[in-house]
């Protein structure tokens, strides 16, 4: 609509007539249309500066008009930002030719990309590598299998060992350990850093530590320089101390930094101010054949509805207000949400007892909790107090659940669920298509 060029003969006439009292205003208006930039000020017929408040500002991401008095974003239209984004990358490019030492990192690469914890661990590795500006170390990342990550250098990787092959696919800790042992022989890294994440670095890192006979620091969440030790031996690992979680997360252990470090998420800031070379390196000798005693037989299909409530991150919970149970169960299936229930729904026999949420049922810690037709008895609200986002679908706008909810939609729950199911199905289909296209 906006792009259609509509001509207004009267305004064009005024624009030509320099003596017309509205001449300046019309010029401003037309200029805005043509150049795509607002000119909200002009000199009025009486010599006063006129301002058009409607021409000021821009439409923000939420669809609201935002006015930025600094003027920086006044003309921020879509095309403009694209230009700016492409224009400059101010990040400093760093290339370490002859590293003094190597810090090895084995990121999880879950889903073929660097996870946020991987980036944090790489940030931690950079801290260790860059501690002495005169003798910088190199961060060596060891990657297994195919990956889709294209910002490896941006994440702080100097050297990249990319090991491909079927033997590393799935759960292959023995083959991966053999590869890490080859790295150990070839580069003898000063530090091994792995994310302490279940089934990822936590497993591999402990295997490595046990094999090379190093006592690792696990659950590390902070790194600092030991003042007393640093004076004598600056830059070397003797000066580093780490703070690690122990005893099932109930203790903090302060200890000198060992060679093998398993770090928690947010252990350090990820790298974002520098770009690194991520130069590929290869092992000089072929990996030895390993005797596989563990065989991965593939994933087992699990019904998301059956996931334990306490573990679930997305719960669709049903209460007394649900009349269309078929629709509810279908919605849970389509949304791939774990099913929950209020006490009443359980008492009435619509849901099994192990699905009951609340002080008398299960205390849940979901990221998103959708309460369908639950009025919100105090025991229920107590049970969901650790949920991040609560969505209420309810007929009664005055109930306690609506008051608690971050988003409440009032109306007929079965219709809303149906509409939601339709939306999600369409979304899934689009995703499928785009995946097929790619």
């Amino acid at each position, binding site marked *: 609509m906006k792009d259609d060029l509509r001509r207004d003969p009267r305004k064009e006439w005024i624009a030509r007539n320099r003596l017309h009292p509205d001449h300046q205003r019309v010029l401003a208006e037309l200029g805005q249309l043509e150049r795509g930039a607002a000119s909200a000020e002009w000199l009025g017929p009486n010599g006063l500066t006129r301002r058009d408040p409607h021409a000021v500002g821009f439409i923000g991401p939420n669809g609201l008009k935002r006015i930025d008095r600094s003027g920086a974003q006044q003309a921020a239209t879509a095309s403009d930002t694209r230009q700016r984004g492409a224009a400059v990358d101010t990040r400093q490019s760093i290339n370490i030719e002859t590293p003094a030492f190597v810090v090895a990192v084995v990121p999880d690469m879950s889903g073929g990309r660097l996870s946020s914890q991987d980036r944090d661990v790489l940030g931690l590795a950079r801290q260790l590598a860059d501690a002495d500006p005169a003798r910088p170390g190199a961060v060596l990342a060891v990657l297994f299998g195919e990956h889709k990550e294209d910002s490896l250098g941006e994440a702080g990787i100097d050297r990249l060992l990319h090991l491909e092959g079927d033997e590393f696919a799935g759960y292959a800790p023995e083959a991966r350990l053999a590869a890490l042992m080859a790295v150990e022989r070839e580069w003898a890294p000063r530090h091994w850093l792995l994310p302490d994440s279940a089934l990822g670095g936590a497993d591999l890192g402990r295997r490595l530590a046990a094999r090379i006979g190093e006592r690792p620091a696990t659950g590390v969440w902070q790194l600092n320089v030991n003042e007393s030790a640093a004076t004598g031996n600056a830059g070397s690992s003797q000066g580093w101390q780490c703070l690690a979680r122990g005893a099932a997360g109930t203790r903090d252990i302060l200890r000198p930094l060992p060679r093998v470090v398993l770090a928690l998420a947010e252990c350090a800031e990820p790298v974002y101010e520098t770009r690194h070379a991520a130069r590929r390196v290869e092992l000089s000798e072929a990996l030895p054949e390993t005797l596989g005693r563990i065989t991965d037989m593939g994933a087992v299909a699990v019904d998301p509805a059956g996931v334990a409530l306490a573990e679930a991150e997305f719960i669709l919970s049903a209460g*007394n207000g649900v009349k269309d149970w078929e629709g509810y169960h279908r919605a849970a299936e389509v949304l791939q949400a774990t099913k929950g229930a209020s006490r009443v729904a359980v008492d009435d026999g619509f849901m099994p007892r192990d699905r009951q949420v609340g002080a008398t049922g299960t205390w849940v810690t979901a990221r998103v909790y959708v309460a369908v037709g639950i009025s919100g008895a105090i*025991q229920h609200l107590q049970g969901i107090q650790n949920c991040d986002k609560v969505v209420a679908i309810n007929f009664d706008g005055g109930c306690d659940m609506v008051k608690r909810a971050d988003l409440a939609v009032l109306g007929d729950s079965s219709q809303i669920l149906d509409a939601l199911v339709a939306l999600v199905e369409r979304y899934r289909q689009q995703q499928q298509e785009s995946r097929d296209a790619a």
Partner: protein
Amino acid sequence: MLDILLPILIFSALALAAIGALRRVRLWRQGRPSPVPIAKSLAAMPRRYLVDLHHVVARDKYISNTHVATAGGFVAAAVLMILVHGLGLGASEGLGGVLGWLLLVASACMFVGSLFVAKRRRPPPPRLSKGPWMRLPKSLMAFSLGVFVITLPSVGVLPADLGSWVLALVLAGIVAWGLAEMVFGMTWGGPMKHAFAGALHLAFHRRPERFSTQEGGPGRSTGLKALDLDDERAPLGVGAPRDFTWNQLLGFDACVQCGRCEAACPAFAAGQPLNPKKLIQDMVVGMVGGSDAHYAGSPYPAPEGGYKPVGEHGGDPHGPIVAHPFANGGTALVDAETLWSCTTCRACVEECPMMIEHVDAIVDMRRFLTLERGNTPNKGGEVLDNLIATDNPGGFDPGSRFNWAADQNLPLMADRQEADVLLWLGDGAFDMRNQRTLRALVKVLRAAEVDFAVLGNEERDSGDVARRLGDEATFQSLARRNIATLSRYRFTHIVTCDPHSFHVLKNEYGALGGHYSVFHHSTYIAELFDSGRLNLKAWKGGSVTYHDPCYLGRYNGEYEAPRRVLQALGIEVKEMARSGYRSRCCGGGGGAPITDVPGKRRIPDMRMEDVNETGAELVAVGCPQCTAMLEGVVNASAEVRDIAELVAEALNEDSAQDRASRRAQQSEEALVS
């Protein structure tokens, strides 16, 4: 001819009865020993029978009168018959004549009674057992009629050689039938067993205190018996019938299968698999050995509807009562879910005319399941673990117990060391709903200027839930630590708004060395009002009914004080049909919400229907459990409020100032004089 036959009949019946009695006593003695003073107990029996038992029976006037006529007639007739017909003292002149006439009167009286017994069973109400019990009225009639007729010649109304030998034989047959049922059957397991076992049960009752009339003495005993956990050989609860004490087994044998317990049991009404009458009969089956196939009353309800079939369960004195869960789905005497359905509300115990202790037996069996098998159902195990690790059933940080009162500025015992009243808050301190009640109670106490203090984070769960779930070890651990905490401070009374804590502190800590003067808040508020320390506005709301908490009412006999408080507010209580000692449980006692045995409906829903029937807009309660359970009812017509909340709302705000100025005045006057 009858002269010869009758003594033979009478004495052989008596002899057989004596043999049966010995056999029965041997059955009872399979149980564990429990020493009793025999002579003293037997001497106490008539009073217990005539006063305590009759007090319960008399709640049903019809059956009470019937029983007086039948039982009184029978006892008199039996004794006189032995004298007249057995020993031949029936000569028509002198004393014998009088005896004969008396026997006629007694048997006639019994006959009239037995007519009413028969009438009650046409048709029998569902709570009564059928089977052999259906023939009992006929047997009673046979006995009384037979004795009446054979006595007529003795007193000379009819000629001694009346009729032929055929008639004599017929009469002898009728008398023999009557004797068989009444004398032989009494000790060989017939319906009349209740008279024999019942009499001895009254004498050797496991809880003789319960018959005490002494005020302030042992009084009504309702506490559970503590287990001796220091003795490693002492059994932990009851796993087989022989693990009961002998007088418990005797008590089970006394059951008359009247089904009053069944009619009162909330779990049975809710369709949960419990029927107290059947449970007691199952214990008798276990004691004797065999299966429950001969049981003729209502069986256990099945959760999916209808009843569990009879005849599939059985056992013996040494076998398990509850089948082991890993024993391939087999059955034993009862299913575990039967034992876990009980809310320990004691409605059955209150109703039982034979003074049987159902709830204690159930908890004894639960103790075995929890302490030996580790098999507390559903959330039971988790709750017990929480109690062990955090001293509260919810698993909350014990250091946050007092967080609710951050804005209340409550005096702590740890700071004060002494106070007149120790306010026991209970585990409701973790529950947001109950915190409202606690705030209200604090407000009331402050208005009455009560010198009180709380334990704060030093308080622990009282141990009630652990004990009802059978975890005696955790109960005793909690109780001992609570007693140790309480012993550090000086106070006159404990006041609490939780009847469960109230009961446990008052009646169950004694066995572990803690003796306190404990008040439920309703009692204490009533006393405050009576002594003029509370100035209350009149009630302006709608109609109100009151729900008696089991642990306040039936357990501790406090029915009056809450009603007095409501009266003081100007409320006229619209009583429910089931109120006072017949109050129906809310379903929240005995860990029932934790073990959560499915039924056809929920107990609190039924209780709320009772409330609805009165048309009351508000139901006043005095228990956090009752509040939680009744508020959990969906679409209830009545609001649920604790008595403390009602009183707090009705406080005259200026009353405190009034009193302060009055006191100032008084002190001035004192100065002047």
